[in-house]
């Protein structure tokens, strides 16, 4: 048998049928559902008199619209409330394997909740009406975001109409330097290949640096595969994967566990498997990353400066830099360390897991928020992450530093709830997108790791966490 990549294996094991033009029906094992991209899909099912093909494939939670404070007051925004209540009603009427509604202790960001419940398993196909579904590829799963029409299609047929992507290997060689996280690796990769560099590809991340990352770090990395243009990112299964999954509520047990582990251990690219593209990075070159512009590829490191559009020859790129600097309120050649911040956001499906909060707390411990910083928001990814952080006393460290400790949800990553930037406010954010208006109209986002965000909140501007 010819050598296969991890993606080849995941793909071929889910093909139900294939047309002459290569279009396939791809079987979906896990369907994660949240309130924003599902109402029109459920409505479509109702209109056509259809039900869910497989109720026990659906795991759901409300995350985008939920507030992160004053839970006793419910959801104040009536349109947000209607969307969350619509999900409640749809799950009640259509069913699900599990549902974690607003205020439930298992509620959280869908991409934090899935793995921590063991609802994401190696070898699965995982979809969700959310582009950051690539997160789940950290488990050696084939996971990607879909649109609402596809959400409805999966609900009704358990399949997606799909075409295979090309294979890309991103190999990060050598050990990571101290303090360098999955976030820095992700941003360094995007800086190298660009936000369209992975378009048309499924990316496998490999190499010593990737193997050394925890499952949380791998989730952060795969989460941002979409920011490199790849719908799915993935990491081969190893002992860390299996240790993470073991004992979780929806993980297999008993004899099934041994059979599952035996299968999961085959989920890696074979020696000599063919990749259509290979990108290599040297881990020792990766320093703490900071974005300066309005696209994740507009990134430099903590020793860098804001670029000068005059130095760019390509007129489209030059125009993009000029527009980004104008939007961001930045002057060419400004050192990153001299950029002050107004707000800090630590959270999102990229960086709100327990390890992220530990890294931020390690920086915040015994220190205080700068007087010039208006607010530092710490938003855990789920109710379970929140409980774990509180058991470890992290909440007390944050509160003592003048940070705000909130309830779980997507929060200021996309500002669908009340947590948002005001026009002109500058934010050090652990989220995934620095697009114009992403965190609030006119808001200015700099993407960084949790430790870098916490450090910016304490210093009032970006600093090198390696020198703290």
């Amino acid at each position: 048998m010819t050598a296969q990549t991890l993606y080849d294996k995941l793909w071929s094991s889910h093909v139900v049928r294939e047309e002459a033009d290569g279009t396939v029906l791809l079987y979906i094992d896990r369907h994660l559902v949240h309130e924003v991209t599902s109402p029109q899909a459920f409505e479509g099912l109702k209109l056509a008199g259809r039900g869910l093909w497989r109720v026990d494939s659906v795991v759901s939670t409300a995350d985008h619209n939920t507030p992160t404070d004053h839970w006793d007051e419910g959801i104040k925004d009536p349109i947000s409330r209607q969307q969350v209540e619509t999900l409640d009603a749809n799950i009640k009427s259509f069913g699900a394997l599990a549902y974690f509604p607003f205020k439930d202790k298992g509620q959280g960001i869908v991409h934090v909740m899935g793995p921590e419940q063991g609802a994401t398993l190696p070898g699965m196909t995982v979809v969700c009406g959310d582009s950051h579904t690539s997160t789940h590829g950290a488990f050696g799963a084939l996971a990607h975001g879909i649109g609402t029409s596809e959400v409805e299609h999966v609900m009704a047929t358990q399949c997606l109409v799909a075409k295979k992507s090309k294979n890309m290997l991103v190999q990060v060689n050598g050990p990571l330097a101290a303090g360098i996280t999955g976030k820095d690796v992700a941003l360094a990769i995007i800086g190298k290949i660009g936000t369209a560099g992975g378009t048309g590809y499924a990316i496998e991340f490999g190499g010593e640096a990737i193997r050394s990352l925890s499952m949380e770090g791998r989730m952060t990395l795969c989460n941002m595969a979409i920011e490199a243009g790849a719908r799915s990112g993935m990491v081969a299964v190893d002992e860390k994967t299996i240790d993470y999954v073991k004992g979780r509520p929806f993980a297999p047990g008993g004899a099934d566990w041994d059979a599952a582990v035996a299968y999961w251990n085959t989920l890696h690219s074979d020696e000599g498997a063919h990749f259509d593209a290979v990108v290599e990075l040297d881990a020792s070159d990766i320093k703490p990353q900071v974005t300066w512009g309005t696209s994740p590829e507009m990134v430099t490191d903590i020793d860098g400066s804001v670029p000068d559009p005059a130095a760019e020859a390509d007129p489209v790129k030059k125009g993009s830099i000029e527009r980004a600097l104008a939007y961001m309120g930045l002057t060419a050649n400004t050192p990153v360390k001299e950029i002050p911040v107004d707000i800090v956001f630590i959270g999102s499906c990229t960086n709100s897991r327990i390890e992220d909060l530990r890294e931020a707390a390690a920086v915040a411990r015994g220190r205080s928020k700068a007087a010039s910083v208006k607010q530092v928001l710490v938003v855990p990814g789920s109710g379970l992450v929140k409980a774990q952080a509180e058991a470890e006393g992290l909440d007390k460290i944050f509160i003592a530093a003048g940070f705000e400790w909130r309830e779980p949800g997507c929060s200021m990553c996309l500002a669908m709830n009340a947590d948002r930037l005001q026009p002109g406010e500058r934010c050090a954010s652990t989220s995934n997108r620095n697009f114009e208006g992403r965190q609030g109209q006119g808001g200015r986002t700099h993407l960084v790791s949790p430790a870098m965000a916490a450090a910016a909140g304490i210093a009032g501007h970006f600093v090198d966490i390696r020198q703290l």
Partner: protein
Amino acid sequence: MKAFEKLAGLVCPLDRANVDTDAIIPKQFLKSIKRSGFGPNLFDEWRYLDHGEPGMDNSVRPLNPDFVLNFPRYAGAQVLLARENFGCGSSREHAPWALDDQGFRVVIAPSFADIFFNNCYKNGLLPIVQPAEVVDQLFRECEAQEGYTLTVDLAAQTITTPTGQVFSFDITEHRKHCLLGGLDEIGLTLQHAEQIKAYEAARRQAQPWLFA
């Protein structure tokens, strides 16, 4: 789904790379539980001078006179000409819904983000990839000539300029078939229900933990 066969449409040029779906339809409009009515909020933050929220009367909001969609010469445009990596970012299908609701039927760009590209086909919106030099030429011609229209023929897979120059484009057979016929993809897939059930039964046998 709405069928697409042939269209001769006015072209609107949007000269920016990496136009993301947050720009196409900002998040506050995603709170709707409907799939229509997003057109007036297409490119909301670029199109209006004030901050938009759901429920506002968009007809009385101050328009940004510098944004291309507001130029009188592009009123009624059905073809959007765009730059590389159009539709990057979130998977929100509200982006193609908003383009469709505004009246666009075709988007031409050198490249598209994968999820957006896929979402377009589900809504009778045709995304067409053309080489960067062709897109450059179309931008030049469109900006030089008021009333510039392109004829897009899906069956023939061609774009024809006002001077009769013809460019061809690629599309998979499956997508072409669905788009030409305006077919219900779920209905098509359910024609293979027995095959899905057989696959599922074998999978349940081999990996029972996935069905626990």
